[in-house]
């Protein structure tokens, strides 16, 4: 009896598993949703539009229609964006990505700007220090102690200038 129940359950499972999966697969993913954006924005469309697969219009580009469908399929399988990314890199290489990887030689793309700014920042620091030092122990005579005085100074000189123009 027990066996029969098991077999019955098994049959029910076998019969319905397809429809369960079907329900899962049919889950609609909005092509403009944030979750789809996170995945699709990683990949460059190769139709010549210069856009990524999130932006590329499926009405004018067949390539992206299929690509989007594949992405949705993978998302439905439960793959996250990194796994999907790995999958495509294995097939097409890094060329398919919209931005370089953060490893290997491509890391230089990400790091170099900050290294250069950092290095230049240190250089600027030393230059300012040199210039300040050059001033040495001389008495620091600031023309204006604060912005207010500076503004007042400027206004005063402009008024004087104006008056001067009136009479000269």
């Amino acid at each position: 009896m027990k066996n029969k129940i098991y077999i019955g359950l098994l049959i029910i499972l076998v019969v319905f598993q397809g429809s369960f999966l079907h329900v899962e697969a049919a889950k609609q993913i909005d092509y403009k949703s944030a979750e789809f954006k996170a995945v699709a924005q990683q990949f460059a469309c190769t139709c010549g539009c210069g856009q990524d697969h999130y932006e590329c219009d499926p009405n004018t580009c067949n390539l992206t229609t299929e690509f989007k469908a594949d992405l949705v399929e993978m998302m439905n399988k439960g793959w996250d964006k990194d796994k999907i990314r790995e999958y495509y890199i294995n097939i097409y290489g890094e060329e398919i990505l919209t931005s370089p990887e953060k490893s290997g030689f491509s890391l230089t793309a990400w790091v170099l700007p900050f290294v250069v700014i950092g290095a230049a920042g240190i250089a600027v620091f030393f230059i300012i220090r040199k210039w300040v030092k050059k001033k040495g122990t001389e008495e620091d005579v600031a023309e204006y102690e604060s912005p207010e005085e500076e503004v007042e100074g400027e206004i005063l000189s402009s008024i004087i200038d104006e008056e001067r123009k009136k009479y000269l």
Partner: protein
Amino acid sequence: MYLFANATIYIGLAIAIYSLLIMTLGISTKNQKFVNSGKGGLIALLVCSSLAMLSLFYLLATSQFQYEYVHDYTSSELPIIYKLTALWAGNAGSLLLWTFFLTLYTFMIALSRKLKGNPMVPYISAILLANAVFFFFILGFVAKPFILLDEIPIEGKGLNPMLQNPGMIIHPVTLYLGYVGLAIPFAFAMAALILKNVDDFWIKMTRRWTIIAWLFLSLGNIFGGQWAYVELGWGGYWAWDPVENASFMPWLTATAFLHSVMIQERKNMLKIWNISLIIVSYALTLFGTFLVRSGVLTSVHAFANSNLGLYFLIFMGVAVIGALYVLMSRYNLLKRSAGEFNSFVSKESSFLINNLLLVGAAFAVFWGTIFPLVSEAVRGTKVTVGLPFFNKVEAPILLSMMFIMAVCPLLAWQKSTVKNLRKNFMIPAILAILAMILMVVLGIQKAWAVIGYGVISLLLITHFLEFYRGVKARRKMTKESPLVALYRLMIRNRRRYGGYIVHLGIAFITMGIIGSQNYDLQTMKTVDLGKSIELKDYRINYDRLDQKKEGINDIVYADVTVFKNGKKLGTYQPEKVFYGNWEQPSSEVAIISSLKEDLYIVLSAWEDDGKATFVVKVNPMMNWLWIGSFMIVIGALFAVWNGKYGNVTPRYTGVRKEVS
């Protein structure tokens, strides 16, 4: 007509070469007659380029399809305005426009009243003439605008529908005015170096021309962004495309120059740096053109690939090497006048950091733009460096820039003491932190947005304080009413307050960018006729789908009624246009705009049973971008306007030579 049009180019080339030679001869032999002859040549050159422009306008307007350019970029049914603007739709025409602006600027400088009798003029003219020779050479032998076809076609290929938009009428014009404009400060810099005379006069003239070029570059980029937003159906305005990068880089370096030149003015320092910035800005305009026209990089701004880029690269090389040679030969002269700083914390230091960040941002853009080429050369893989890269790399740099911009007005020249700092910064800093807390309480949770808006709050407060203090100080002395005091304060120091208005404009643009990048919502839905799409507070009812004919174009449109919180906003018509002479259809989007946000509706697709697919977006704070842009224009114009007070061109006191 064919002979006449081509004659304008080739005679132009001959005149340009003649003028350059005679001008150089005049300079070296100190013969005013020769220089005057060269100046005459400049007028003739402007006549030539104007006639070439008019010829092409005429050919385009009258649809003379026997000409390749007319055939490639227009068709007979095109509205006259777009027939005319097709002049800058292709390579040859846009270079002709460039040449025209170059000759126009050269003419304006060489015969300017203010520069009369100035010995710099022959040098500036000669440098600009060398540019003109290059451009006329390109027009004459590489990208010829007036080529006849073997057979006369009945119809032209038509203009890319994307370019049939008011934004496209003005975007290239302003951008080229900006590009060409940067040749002027370059010429001034070179002339000053050759004459060993980098003084106050040079600063004032160069700055004014740089602001003008900067303004046009800004306008060019803004119009480009605005066009992309309304025309491409993409909902964005900046894609970090190589061409956009090409115009953004000189914009950044020119901005850096406009700030660091103030240190030169006050302290007679950073001369070499400033001249380098001018050279780099100019070189970047040529480099950008090389990138765009050579086809080495994929870009949405599709110009036909040709060897044109190579010529620009060579010309850039020659110009940069020449400029560096002149710079090096005057190195000692420039170095001699190096000054010193009084303190670590001062306006001077903040300008240096500003320069570091601006040039750093330009370098990051440059590096990202050329990285595909570098990667291909190093390891044979041509990677794409797109939007995610630039957004991630540029955001922290530009945000730091905003912070410096916020802090700088409160720092004193020479030296800021700790006491001053505390006094000046305590209140703005507390207010900015309060604003950030308020944002978090009100539901703005994203770190970038909170930090960004916090920095902008600080900027707004410090700039307000600047105006407030100025007015207060003026009133203390003059007892004027606040508005009069504000007005007089501003017109008496146009540069400073113009600059502040520009800062405020940048703050508005940044607010728009942060809002639209972090809080946009989108959906793409297929709905049955009569059904609706809901997004945020909006409900979009899909009422009707129909088709109409406009000229040779077929237009499919949907009537949609938009409700916000149940209140009807109106009926709108997003369209899809199918062109009679163009393969790709385009989307005419419906935009319902408000200060808070834009609702952006695109008709994407439809089926026979009436079902239609719409892309609906809510783009927050888009109008802030356009308002900020407007403020930039106002600020820049205010700064360069020739007022009654100050800002007058100083008298030239440099080296005198016999020719002028």
